[in-house]
């Protein structure tokens, strides 16, 4: 028996600037703070990773943080999560439409409009491959300790998935993140229920299924996120209140089948 008198760490890698702001307060309250500590860090899927050995690269990012902060050890890790925007990366190249007025790519519900189709096509190919690989990683080895891994997507990005808004400026994103945090203040566990609704239309509440679903057709352009699967996976670490909400969601799910 180890004398492990320490909380466990859930290590999250996020891409966007507002992901941390939106989720940090939610997770801190939804999960049991007497057992869990969150460590949220920024990364960039396109530059921090290349297609070979994703496992190894995620492991390196975590290892670096461990070595820099010198607070937690590999043995403290309970779960590693990567949060990423789909940006429509799984759509067919034919859905990338040329529009010379678009200085930046514009995301619509069934196509991406851009002045440089070739660049977007190339980007989608790379990102699609990487996300596919990442989604299939079940665990990551950090300093020889296997840690369960999960990839959470926001389709086609966080604002679209949570607020149904697209193509926002950085100021607008910040504004939405603030309003989002404000609206859940005091009722954070409601997000568990809401996130069940935020799964893409027609998608079952199951991790592998959620990834299979997002790769179909133009689904990666439509709003949705599978963050609900994270709550399912880590349900024993939710607060009692959070657990109750989760269980009633699952009940509803089962009764509707």
């Amino acid at each position, binding site marked *: 028996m180890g004398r492990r*008198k*320490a*909380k466990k*760490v859930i290590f999250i890698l996020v891409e966007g600037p507002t992901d*941390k*702001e939106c989720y*940090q*307060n939610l997770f*801190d309250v939804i999960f049991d*703070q*007497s057992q869990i*500590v969150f460590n949220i860090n920024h990364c960039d899927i396109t530059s921090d990773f290349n297609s070979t050995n994703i496992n190894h690269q995620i492991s390196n990012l975590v290892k670096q943080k461990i070595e820099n902060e*010198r*607070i*937690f050890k590999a043995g*403290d890790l309970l779960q590693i999560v990567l949060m990423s925007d789909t940006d429509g990366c799984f759509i067919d190249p034919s859905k990338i439409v040329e529009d010379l007025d678009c200085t930046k790519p514009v995301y619509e519900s069934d196509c991406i409009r851009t002045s440089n189709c070739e660049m977007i096509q190339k980007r989608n190919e790379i990102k699609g491959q990487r996300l596919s690989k990442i989604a299939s990683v079940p665990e990551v080895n950090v300093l020889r300790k296997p840690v369960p891994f999960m990839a959470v997507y926001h389709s086609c990005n966080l604002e679209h998935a949570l607020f149904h808004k697209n193509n926002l400026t950085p100021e607008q994103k910040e504004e939405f993140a*603030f309003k989002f*945090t*404000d609206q859940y*203040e005091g009722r954070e566990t409601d997000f568990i229920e809401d996130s069940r609704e935020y799964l893409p239309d027609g998608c079952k509440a199951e991790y592998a299924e959620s990834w299979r679903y997002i790769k179909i057709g133009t689904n990666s352009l439509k709003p949705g996120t599978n963050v609900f699967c994270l709550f399912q996976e880590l349900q024993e670490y939710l607060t009692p209140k959070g657990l109750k909400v989760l269980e009633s969601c699952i009940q509803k799910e089962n009764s509707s089948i």
Partner: protein
Amino acid sequence: MPAEVRIKSIRMQNFKSVSNGKIDFNTHYEFGTTENAIDLYGVYGPNGSGKTAIIDACSVIKNIFRKGYLPEKASGFIKQNQLSSAVEIEFFLHVGNDVLLLNYFIEFSNQDLRREPIIVQEWLKRKEWDESKNKFSSWQTLERFKRSDLRGNDASESAFAVQYRRQIEGAVKSDPNRSWLFNPLTKSLLKEIKEYSKSSAKERRLIQLQFAVANLEEYAENQWLIINNEAYGEIPVLNILPMYLHHQGDEFGVHGSFPIDCSLSGSSKPTLPKKFEPAIQESIHQINIVLSQIIVGLTIELTPVSPSFGPNGEELVSFEPFAVRSGNRIPLMYESFGIKRIISILSALIAAVNNPFICLMIDEMDSGVFEYLLGEIISVLSETAKGQILFTAHNLHPLEKIRYKNIYFTTTLEDESFVHLKNVKTTNNLRDLYYRTLILSLDSDQYLNPFKEGKIRHAFRKAGRMNGTT
């Protein structure tokens, strides 16, 4: 022959945010030997958790020993919703072949509707080292005073003859913040006791009391240096630099805090008798020896200015301070806050390093000091300081330089406000372990009332919107 004094422990109850806290000085000092005796202690903890309480408690006791009364600010030190506050300090005293332990206790309270604090209880106890039994005798009460019991029903315990008691009673009754034991009246009465025969136990105890009081007073006056932050509030505003000088010159010793006015227009600069100037300049010379090593190439100069005469015709002088670097002389006022602070405490630090009977207490020692330099200074102190040093700080780098037994952390526990970290292995880096304890330990809320990054961020934004800044 003056006694050699070292503090053994400090205990406080209901003092500021501390419910019950104790700091033990290991006092490795072996009297009469030059054995390694490092009593260096750091106190760490979140803002408002009680670090400065130790320094304030000692400040109160020092004031009592030197001046005989409780300072008015003591009423503000009583913990919220508590009736009274208490401080207890134990001292080792060594004179000739005798080693004594003294226990001084004071309990004070607020008067209803009045701002002045009143002393509720006070005592001084004594223990003597018995060479033949190789242990201390049991505690003897030299004198005890209880406000509720002014007639002294413990007459058998009290060393004071009835007549003396009545005189002190009268004095203390009218000024309830006056110490019973360190009252000037008490001290002068005790001095008279020498004339009595030493045969009776009561008289013997009076002599012991007189000896203890005289030595504690001397200790508080000349050996016990407390540097808190009150004086530093003035640096940015008035440019008064408090210099803690501690030096024994040929004719005069310089002990204590001496304000140096750095401002250029010195119309009312503090003045000193000119005869002290050589001792002060010696002090400055001593400071420069160390200063030039800490901030390479920097020394300070005090230029005497504005000679004048005092009411008794004695010559007075004032000082203009300068910083000298590579031959360039600029008024000290223009140096940075950190450098001024270092200069200010250097004389006291030099004394604490070299004199085993100095006790130096510094609040927020790291304030304005470059982290790397702080670490090097702490390293030196932890290996060479002969005196006792206690400091509070926020910078955690010193945790990487001192053993865990020399660091106290504040807690939110009711009965143990100061603790050492537990389960520390020699290979542990104490700073990392402390962080880990604060963040990951299952009982982390013993050390810290947790604050959350996400909530702080949201709070900043929210407040900004109320301000109309967005």
